[in-house]
């Protein structure tokens, strides 16, 4: 069970977390006609928001216990991982209807147009890259007993 | 929408009218989603078709999504999504009718009415439809409208027939007469049943002489009801003295449908054929009163031309062994009393009193009975698997969706002896522990539906269905479902879907219905004939039953022997009888001196066997080896005027239209296969075309989801195997040796013509000219190549040529 601790007060707004997330979810693309292929960074699942008082708030999925997104999905495409506790998108089942993103009260889920796929924080399957690269400790990962 | 130019308020009035009528039906049926098909049937009957608006009302009323209602209503042929005419004229395109010229009848009807099949005349008077099989095969070609059945219809008479129909059909009111409620005792124990039987037997032995009038669909079409009414009138009129001891009884099908109406006088067992209303007085005065036979009404043996007095001596009957059909033609199917008097429900009573469910299953297994629906799965084993399945309630389903064109044994059996089927079903229910049963009968069989409906309600009133049957601990009741007109519903999983109110699309097996069937309950699905056989087995004992037949196929089998045979009708023979005996002895061979060419066995999924294979016994395995199947037991005799390529095309076309459309090979493959066969019949195929046909047929057979698709290619593969030369003749010589394929056949009068004029009269387009007693000639430019001339010529005076041969002959004459 992985838990990410978020401390907005410590966030400096450097956005290293976004970059790390993007690369942690990058895909190697095969060479396609008219392109070179190569690495395609993913849409960051963590976003640093700037509030009206110019404070920085790293926003990412809370992995809610009673998650609205799971209730919204009609195709069984959202499942909680028993290992990490993260709510994961089963992309094969997902029909891109977008109801999960619409249901999420926090805006922590969205469509990655280029693939296309619904994306959200999956705790990097157990090793959150954002926490690893956060220089201030605003994002810290911790392993909890189940 | 005012596309019809009608003022808006009248459309509103129409809508509210529809709403009221639909609402009445919904209230009568109850608002449950399982009622969907029944409700749609009622609405279709009520409005004549199903406007989208009515579907919306049904969807709202039953709480079913409109999309599902639409899906169901467009799947079944019995529903119409277009308005229809005041009279619906149906031409039977079953195989038996087809080989006897139903295509020509349809063409003539299209010409006469100026509309295609499925369309309605501009005045809204008539809708023309073709149907797969009306089960009146021995009378083919057949046209029906309402309750009027016109049999043996020739293309030339179509115009007149249509006019008759337009003028109105008084016979419509006839049906079966009003519901006659007979006093039935309530049977609370086996003893009750026995004492009732003794009583009724006492009564039944009353009459000195009985006239049994066959009132099956075939004889009805020929006017049997009028005959029976006339007989009753004459008995009544013959004075009180002599009337004592005389009785007329309408029975179910006697089997010899071709010769109807049939009247049997007992106890002499004198059989009269082709009886007319006007014969009634003589029958009453001479035969019934004095026991004198009337020679002109006796049936002549097809081969010796000798008139035969007693029916069991006719070769048609003498070669048969009537076990399952024992009661057919002897009892009144509408009377439970009659059935009980003949020993009915004795088997059930004994089963309930003395046997355990396992014991019944064991007995059926020992009898060697195999499913009569076609596949031949051992019935005992099926019951055992269902009895052992996990789950509480069990269900038994009687499959009466006899869809094979050219087969009508189930229809006939239900019409003649519905209680024997019901009794078998109750016994089956006891064996597997079922408390509910369903009887599914296709909507094309109104009489069978009526007889079975009556049998069920009488059995219920007498306590043979319901709680504590005959005082035992068994509770069992059945409900009936009218089929929607989809061949594929004969497939068991599709049939279950249909009862559940869904489109009849098969689902993959396993799980087999014995584990998960109707509404997911363990379910046994047995064919009509199988269930009737169960009753007989428990009456006569497994050992006696197993003594009949061959090593692996036990008992008897009912066949509908139709097509180009002298005697056509329903016959029951022991398993193992050779096909040749069936065709030549029972069927009396091919008429008009033509040559027997092939026999098609097993319906659309069966195969065509050539003359050389006819010594094979009827036996599940022996038929399979030759590329045919037992199927439900249709035997269609074909002579040299039947084109095997055209037969293959016919069956493929049939199955293409009946494909449910779920899996690709069957849905789209059959379409392509039919197109390719058409190119052969049109003379446009190349030599490689036959390989393509064969390959496609193989792919469909291997890849399809259900049995319909997997066996759909049997007619193609078996004709390719046994009649390849005929295919090659089409492809290479541009010739149809049977003179059937229009684009290829050219007819020419040869030197054997003696100018009798028969062909000239038969020609529907007056293309034949010539003085009587001098050679005739065919005008090629007006000839429509229907072959009517060929069919009437006794002398072989007409040659079938290929187009090229004809052109060459013309050149010769010119030079």
């Amino acid at each position, binding site marked *: 069970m992985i838990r990410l601790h978020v401390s907005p007060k410590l966030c400096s707004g450097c956005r290293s977390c976004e970059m790390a997330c993007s690369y942690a979810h990058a895909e190697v693309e095969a060479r396609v006609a008219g392109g070179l292929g190569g690495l395609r960074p993913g849409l960051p699942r963590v976003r640093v928001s700037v509030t009206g008082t110019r404070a920085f708030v790293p*926003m990412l999925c809370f992995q809610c216990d009673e998650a609205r997104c799971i209730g919204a999905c009609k195709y069984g495409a959202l499942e909680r991982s028993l290992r990490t506790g993260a709510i994961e998108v089963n992309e094969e089942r997902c029909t891109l209807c977008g109801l999960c993103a619409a249901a999420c009260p926090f805006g922590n889920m969205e469509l990655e147009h280029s693939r296309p796929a619904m994306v959200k924080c999956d705790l990097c399957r157990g090793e959150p890259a954002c926490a690893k690269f956060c220089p201030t400790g605003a994002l810290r990962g911790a392993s909890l007993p189940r | 929408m005012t596309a019809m130019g009608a003022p808006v308020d009248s459309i509103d009035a129409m809508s509210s009218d529809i709403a009221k009528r639909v609402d009445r039906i919904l209230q009568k049926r109850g608002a449950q989603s399982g009622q969907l098909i029944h409700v749609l049937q009622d609405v279709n009957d009520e409005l004549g078709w199903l406007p989208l608006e009515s579907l919306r009302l049904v969807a709202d009323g039953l709480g079913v999504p409109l999309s599902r209602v639409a899906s169901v209503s467009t799947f079944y042929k019995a529903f119409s999504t277009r308005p229809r005419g005041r009279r619906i004229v149906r031409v039977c395109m079953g195989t038996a009718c087809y080989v006897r010229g139903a295509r020509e009848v349809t063409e003539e009807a299209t010409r006469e009415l100026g509309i295609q099949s499925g369309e309605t005349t501009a005045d809204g008077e008539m809708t023309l439809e073709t149907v797969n099989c009306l089960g009146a095969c021995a009378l083919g070609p057949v046209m029906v409208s309402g309750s009027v059945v016109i049999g043996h219809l020739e293309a030339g008479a179509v115009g007149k027939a249509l006019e008759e129909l337009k003028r109105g059909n008084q016979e419509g009111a006839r049906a079966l007469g009003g519901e006659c409620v007979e006093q039935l005792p309530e049977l609370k124990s086996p003893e009750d049943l026995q004492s009732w039987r003794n009583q009724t037997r006492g009564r039944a032995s009353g009459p000195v002489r009985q006239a049994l009038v066959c009132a099956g669909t075939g004889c009805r079409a020929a006017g049997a009801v009028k005959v029976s009414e006339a007989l009753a009138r004459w008995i009544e009129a013959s004075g009180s003295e002599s009337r004592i001891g005389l009785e007329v009884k309408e029975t179910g099908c006697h089997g010899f449908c071709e010769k109807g109406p049939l009247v049997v006088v007992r106890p002499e067992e004198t059989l009269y054929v082709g009886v007319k209303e006007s014969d009634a007085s003589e029958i009453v005065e001479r035969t019934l009163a004095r026991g004198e036979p009337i020679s002109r009404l006796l049936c002549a043996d097809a081969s010796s031309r000798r008139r035969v007095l007693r029916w069991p001596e006719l070769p048609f009957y003498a070669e048969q062994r009537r076990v399952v059909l024992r009661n057919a033609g002897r009892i009144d199917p509408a009377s439970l009393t009659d059935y009980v008097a003949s020993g009915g429900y004795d088997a059930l009573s004994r089963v309930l009193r003395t046997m355990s469910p396992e014991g019944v299953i064991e007995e059926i297994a020992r009898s060697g009975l195999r499913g009569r629906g076609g596949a031949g799965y051992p019935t005992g084993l099926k019951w055992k698997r269902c009895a052992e399945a996990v789950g509480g309630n069990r269900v038994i389903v009687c499959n009466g969706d006899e869809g094979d064109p050219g087969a009508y044994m189930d229809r006939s059996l239900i019409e003649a002896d519905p209680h024997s089927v019901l009794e078998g079903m109750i016994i089956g229910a006891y064996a597997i522990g079922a408390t509910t049963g369903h009887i599914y009968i296709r909507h094309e069989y109104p009489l069978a539906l009526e007889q079975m409906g009556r049998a069920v309600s009488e059995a219920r009133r007498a306590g043979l269905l319901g709680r504590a049957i005959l005082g035992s601990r068994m509770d069992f009741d059945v409900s009936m479902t009218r089929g929607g007109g989809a061949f594929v519903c004969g497939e068991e999983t599709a049939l279950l879907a249909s009862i559940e109110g869904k489109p009849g699309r098969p689902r993959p097996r396993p799980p087999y219905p014995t584990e998960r069937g109707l509404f997911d309950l363990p379910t046994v699905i047995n064919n009509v004939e199988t269930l009737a056989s169960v009753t007989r087995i428990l009456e006569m004992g497994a050992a006696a039953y197993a003594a009949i037949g061959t090593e692996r196929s036990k008992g008897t089998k009912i066949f509908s022997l139709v097509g180009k045979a002298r005697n056509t009708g329903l016959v029951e023979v022991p398993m193992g009888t050779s096909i040749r005996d069936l065709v030549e002895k029972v069927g009396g061979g091919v008429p008009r001196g033509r040559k027997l060419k092939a026999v098609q066995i097993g319906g659309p999924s069966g195969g065509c066997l050539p003359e050389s294979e006819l010594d094979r016994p009827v036996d599940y395995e022996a038929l399979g080896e030759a590329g045919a199947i037992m199927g439900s037991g249709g035997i269609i005799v074909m002579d040299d005027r039947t084109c095997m390529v055209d037969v293959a095309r016919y069956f493929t076309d049939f199955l293409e239209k009946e494909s449910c459309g779920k899996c690709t090979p069957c849905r789209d493959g059959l379409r392509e296969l039919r197109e390719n066969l058409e190119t052969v019949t049109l003379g446009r195929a190349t030599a490689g075309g036959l390989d393509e046909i064969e390959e496609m047929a193989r792919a469909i057979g291997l890849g399809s989801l259900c049995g319909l698709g997997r066996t759909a290619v049997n007619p193609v593969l078996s004709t390719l195997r046994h009649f390849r030369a005929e295919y090659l003749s089409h492809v290479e010589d541009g010739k149809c040796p049977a003179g059937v394929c229009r684009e290829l056949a050219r007819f020419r009068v040869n030197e054997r013509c003696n100018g009798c004029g028969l062909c000239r009269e038969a020609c529907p387009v007056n293309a034949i000219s010539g003085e009587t007693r001098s050679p005739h000639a065919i005008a090629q430019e007006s000839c429509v190549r229907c072959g009517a001339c060929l069919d009437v010529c006794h002398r072989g005076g007409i040659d079938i040529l290929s187009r090229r041969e004809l052109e060459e002959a013309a050149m010769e004459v010119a030079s």
Partner: protein
Amino acid sequence: MIELRLDGELVLASEGERLLDVARRVGRRIPTLCDHPAVEPEGACRLCVVEVRDRAEGPGRVVPSCLERVQPGLDVRTVTQEVKLVRQTVVRLLLRRAPESAALRSLAEEVGGKSSEAVREPTEPAEINWGKSSGAVWASEENAGGAGCVLCGICTRLCAAAGYDAISIQGRGAEARVSGPGGEPPEACTGCGVCARACPTGHILLAESGGVRRIWGRRFEMIRCGGCGEATLPRELAELESRRLGVTLVELTHCPTCKRRSSAEKFGELPARRTREGLSESGPMKGVAR
């Protein structure tokens, strides 16, 4: 665990696993068309057929691997003459329905064999653009009318799974059509667009521009995000789902970016609190009660 033989190799599978999944797991390519992980398999297209034998010597049966489950000792062959014949025939027949489908063209290459003469140059399936305006053109009298329907039933099954039941297969045999009841634009359609996105041949067209989505012959007003004005969900869909989920229409139709911005305002202002590890933490991490 169940042991079976796949193309001669022994493989292990878990109880109830489909042959298709086992074969793919061990790296076999098996073509499919009507299989969709979100709905029950139907065995309709017959592309995924394999040959199985219950005993090594027994007769082979050609079965769809999407439906057939593993059994101990089963002998499965993914490529045999019979399997090839069925697959090639199926692709050829489907290409007659949708000659321009890129998906079918690549399946045809994969299974080999004779390709249909009727095949034209491939085009990409109609582009579906979620939430953005798209160039796809609505051009149909028959409601869908794109590249050709292969009757795989994915759209109707998904529509039923969503609980809308707007479209269904109507008629039977080769004449069967997917459409709204009676061939009319489906009244129960919410414009969710799932059918169009899942259609393997791109037959179902969805077009969106100027805040209007068009599909199945119907027009759906798109509700715009209360924050930024971006089109989010069709009104019918949003209203239905707002009732089902008990979420206000306004919340449901705010775009993720705007929702994130407003929730960040709230979390940014929350006082720091102690946690087990002694770090400060913000936000209602333990569950969000509705």
